């Protein structure tokens, strides 16, 4: 089509069919003004199939990788743990998941619904976190209000934990550039988090010293923080959660100013309009728009570049898991052999360091793509700490009297 004919349509743009209220949580209402974005958003409940390591399937991670049950033993993630799917599923999935059963705190809703933006205002965050999740008055999954200011349609962050964390880092969100906002809206949720305490489950992000694993470990160690004690090894462990933003921030794309939205919500052309694709999903099913504007390689070539990176990562994950399981079993053997807490302290703290690094990559969602070399570095460290834990445990059990030849390999 000739570019000048289009001048016509150019005049009529988004009509304001309805006024969108300050706390309008229903995407259908927003959709009256922005039907294209709304239709795309609705697709986030469409099952577009699985990629090698991602995709929209509700894959059962515990069934796909039996090692996870032993690694997460004693923690809810050993009960049920699935690969995530589109934003439209968030409400259903958080309600149905068996983890924590009916005792989920309101905190679990923080990243699952547009209604929480309203509730944080009405109830205040603290009351929200301390209400049973199933008692919260929520109707809608993640949608418009989580990312937009209805009056201007500008991007906006609403999650109090993110705002607090950035303040503590001395980042002035008012000064954030538009390109930064195209990642910050995602960083409200796709990040490592922790609860202030089981009794008072206020939501926080461990970013005091920075975004790298080493920074977060330093913070957790200073606080003497841990999520649970591993029943077999007795180590005080931390469950890492989807640090997508943190890993991305160490990578070459972040360094090059490439935002989450660039790849997961690329612009697309709808008739004579250019809009952001609100069907947030794996870029591997949308390579043309997601990658080819910047990379001139073919779709197949780009996909296999991603796969090459992901397979390397997966191989190191396998090694890490085997190493950590060997450590767990060696520590168990040692304590059975009579080694005491003092003798096992070193082995246990090494297990903590190893599992933290492995879980950081495991719970991150790109199988290393967001920062390939950093993911590999962390897995290398995980292996080192895990095997050192095994060594320490074997020495301890030797003291404990028996040799550890009985320790089995996974």
């Amino acid at each position, binding site marked *: 089509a000739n*570019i000048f004919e*289009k*001048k016509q*349509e*150019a005049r009529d*743009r*988004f009509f304001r069919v309805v006024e969108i209220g300050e706390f309008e949580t229903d995407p259908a209402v927003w959709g009256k003004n922005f039907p294209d974005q709304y239709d795309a958003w609705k697709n986030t409940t469409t099952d577009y199939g699985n990629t090698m390591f991602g995709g929209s399937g509700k894959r059962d991670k515990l069934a796909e990788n039996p090692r996870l049950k032993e690694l997460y033993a004693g923690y809810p993630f050993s009960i049920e743990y699935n690969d995530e799917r589109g934003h439209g599923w968030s409400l259903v999935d958080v309600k149905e998941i068996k983890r924590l059963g009916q005792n989920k705190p309101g905190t679990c809703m923080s990243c699952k619904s547009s209604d929480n933006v309203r509730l944080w205002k009405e109830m205040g965050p603290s009351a929200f976190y301390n209400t049973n999740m199933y008692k919260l008055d929520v109707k809608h999954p993640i949608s418009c209000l989580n990312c937009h200011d209805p009056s201007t349609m500008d991007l906006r962050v609403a999650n109090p934990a993110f705002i607090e964390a950035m303040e503590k880092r001395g980042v002035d969100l008012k000064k954030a*550039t*538009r*390109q930064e906002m195209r990642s910050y809206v995602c960083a409200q949720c796709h990040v490592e988090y922790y609860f202030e305490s089981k009794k008072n489950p206020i939501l926080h992000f461990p970013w005091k010293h920075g975004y790298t694993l080493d920074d977060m470990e330093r913070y957790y160690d200073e606080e003497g923080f841990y999520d649970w004690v591993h029943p077999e090894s007795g180590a005080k462990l931390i469950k890492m959660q989807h640090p997508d933003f943190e890993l991305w921030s160490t990578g070459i794309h972040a360094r090059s*100013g490439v935002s989450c939205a*660039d790849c997961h919500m690329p*612009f697309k*052309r709808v008739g*004579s*309009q*250019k*809009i*952001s694709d609100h069907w947030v999903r794996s870029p591997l099913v949308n390579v043309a728009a997601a990658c080819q*504007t*910047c990379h*001139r390689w073919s779709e197949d070539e780009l996909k296999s570049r991603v796969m090459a990176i992901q397979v390397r990562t997966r191989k190191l994950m396998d090694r890490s898991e085997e190493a950590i399981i060997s450590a767990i079993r060696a520590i168990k053997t040692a304590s059975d052999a009579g080694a005491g807490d003092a003798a096992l302290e070193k082995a246990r703290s090494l297990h903590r360091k190893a599992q933290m690094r492995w879980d950081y990559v495991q719970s991150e969602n790109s199988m290393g793509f967001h920062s390939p070399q950093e993911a590999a570095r962390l897995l290398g460290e995980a292996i080192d700490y895990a095997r050192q834990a095994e060594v320490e445990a074997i020495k301890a059990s030797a003291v404990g009297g028996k040799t550890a030849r009985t320790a089995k390999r996974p």
Partner: protein
Amino acid sequence: MTVTAMQKLAAALAGLLVGTGGFTFLYARGFSYLSDKPETCVNCHVMREQLDAWYASSHSSAAVCNDCHTPHPKVAKYLVKATNGIKHSTYFTLGNFHEPIRISSSNRRIVEQNCRRCHEHLVGAIHGSPDELSCLSCHVRAGHQR
């Protein structure tokens, strides 16, 4: 508005005022800066790469050098052409410019404005000013296929 021969001449004369630069400006058919034919840019072999890369780009059928590299409306256009012409001529004569050649921030801005000028109908509503979201951060190869 249309451009008078006067304005073109004025711009060219502006070139003449600057010593070697001005001299080269004429010798190397610096008037090419006042023409819109891409080939004329290549009176300087150093522009050859960009010409070839432009031919290979999606825009070779849509836009010529000056559509992107000189601002519109036209008065400003001929001033920028003259100043760029003199600047490049001088560099070219002295030969001591950074290679690979890189667009200056001021000229990058002009290009950005031209992207918006032509694509207003499509991106006007969603893409704001260049400092907000730069076209080139994504469409780096629009003008020159690399």
